[in-house]
């Protein structure tokens, strides 16, 4: 590659040519990122400080600068934003550890060789395939339908046998479990279906992580006389720790994308309330990023990188 500058021909060094080639490979993305992604992020901040209306007849866009009015309205005047934001964040925080533990547990089970393993893996990934929003309502309704079938039977049995769920909750209460812990357990049990549905990708990632642990580590552990339990905590868990971070990021983003607050932002702009919608998006994203940064920081301190 040659270039002409000041009338003098000179050659670019190998390094320079290489970096130009590298830039050539990433060029489409770089343009797209700057124009669409970063451009839209900046616009989002700008819109959140604006009052925007679209003239119905001409389609022209009218913008007036209103400062922080949209933010003040979102936090003090809007009917549901505070509540939806809090509950979305809480949902995310409750689901996150459950999904991580559940998917690691399932990956540990599925990592063993047994008959029908391919079939079971296919089934466990099925929720990802069936996650279309368009069919979401059908899935929810069918879940309820199938559950009613079973749970109504269970309820009948409970009535005749004199067993009641509240009795067991009482029992756990008597164990002097803190009420928050108890509430968490009850919540988690209620969410089992949604946790299982939300773990498809994470299970696959954990299986891949488990496959990448060198077998020699397990061999050493066995020769040194470690039990299966000790091997789990001393070999498996430290080795998958970096992947726990990956999965945490994936889960938080996934939950955030599906959360009520994102839906609220979408609904708000479809109701022509553009500035407010931008504030919702901006605030919820910032909060999610803060939480994510905090969790990743805490996990990173304990992580151990093999390579």
């Amino acid at each position: 590659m040659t270039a002409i500058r000041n009338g003098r021909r000179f050659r670019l060094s190998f390094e320079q040519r290489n970096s130009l080639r590298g830039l050539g490979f990433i060029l489409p993305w770089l343009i797209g990122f700057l124009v669409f992604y970063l451009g839209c992020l900046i616009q989002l901040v700008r819109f959140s400080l604006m009052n925007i209306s679209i003239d119905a007849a001409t389609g022209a866009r009218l913008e007036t600068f209103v400062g922080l009015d949209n933010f003040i309205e979102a936090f003090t005047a809007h009917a549901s934003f505070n509540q939806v934001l809090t509950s979305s964040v809480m949902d995310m925080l409750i689901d996150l550890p459950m999904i991580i533990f559940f998917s690691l547990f399932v990956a540990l089970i599925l990592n063993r060789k047994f008959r029908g393993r391919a079939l079971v893996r296919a089934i466990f990934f099925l929720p990802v395939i069936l996650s279309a929003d368009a069919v979401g309502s059908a899935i929810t309704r069918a879940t309820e339908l199938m559950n009613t079938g079973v749970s109504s039977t269970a309820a009948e049995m409970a009535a005749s046998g004199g067993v009641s769920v509240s009795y067991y909750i009482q029992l756990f209460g008597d164990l002097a479990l803190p009420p928050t812990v108890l509430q968490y357990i009850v919540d988690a049990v209620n969410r089992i279906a949604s946790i299982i549905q939300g773990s498809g990708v994470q299970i696959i990632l954990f299986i891949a992580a488990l496959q990448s642990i060198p077998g020699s580590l397990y061999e050493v552990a066995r020769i040194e006389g470690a039990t299966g339990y000790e091997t789990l905590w001393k070999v498996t868990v430290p080795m998958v720790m970096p992947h726990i971070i990956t999965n945490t990021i994936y889960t938080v983003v996934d939950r955030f994308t599906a959360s009520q607050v994102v839906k609220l932002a979408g609904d708000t702009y479809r109701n022509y309330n553009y500035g407010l919608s931008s504030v919702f998006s901006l605030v919820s994203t910032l909060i999610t990023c803060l939480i994510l940064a905090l969790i990743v920081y805490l996990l990173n301190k304990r992580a151990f990188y093999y390579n």
Partner: protein
Amino acid sequence: MQKSRKLPELWRGYRSSARYDDQKSRVLNGTKNGLLSFFRFIIIVGISYVILAPVIGIISNSFFSRQDSINPMVFTIPISPTLARYEMAVKYLDYLPILGRTLLYVTGVTLLQLLICSMVGYGFARYRFPMKKVLFAFIVLMIVVPLNTIQFPLYMTFRYFGIGDGTVNLLKSPWPTVILSAFGCGLRSGLYIYIFNQFFRGLPKEIEEAALVDGAGAWRTYFRIMLPNASPAIITVAVFSLVWQYNDSFFANTFNIPDSILITRKLDSLVAVIANAEKILTIREQQLYFDAGVVLVLVPVVLIYLLLQRRFIEGVERSGIVG
């Protein structure tokens, strides 16, 4: 009588022998393994049921006749099954033509994503250029901050697409998706770039050095040598992209993609259309048509997954997506 006196002695002899320990541990281990695989079986069956129950419910419901749907004694297995729901759903979904167009759109976008994301991933994996770390941080930013955040600015960008006064309204067409995918900002492109980057970093550098020595240029090396070697990563990204693009509602809603090229959007209006045209007024019966529509919409994507399933899971394991 002599025999019975001898028995305890025999027993004692047996207990102190090595054979006893050997057999004891074998029996104990056998029981332990048996119990473990039994519990594993129960857990797997239970979780599989939670996942499959709605699918079974939808499939069985789509065969329900009117009598079955109002009969409280019928659960899951219809007494008088009928295919009428499917006939109506196929008719009003305009099934085959629209499915064809949907698959064309989804496959096209997937091919674009594969090309662009693999290129960018390769560029980051193999070349050094100024500000590389910052630029890669932007990839991570794209993963962490989903497109949903910038939904409204994106809508505005494509509502008034262009520079200055000559703007075009690109909504109600597939072009926004195509443009975004072509510039590496499509649905979850950040994740795909990351996957390709991880994969190419794991390939030995000697391959390219050999190609370079043999006189192949950068692009030729990439298309002829690197891409054909990247099949695990390609399969992984292809399955993710096909499935997510097909199921996607974000692009569909934001850019108002017409239901003539996106079958999931057609499905949204199916119940209303059938209820109107066929004068079906009970909600319960309307739902049966919807279930048939859901089955029809999900069949292709499940088929794609089942076809690529084995290679997909191997691909995830080998493409180093997790590192």
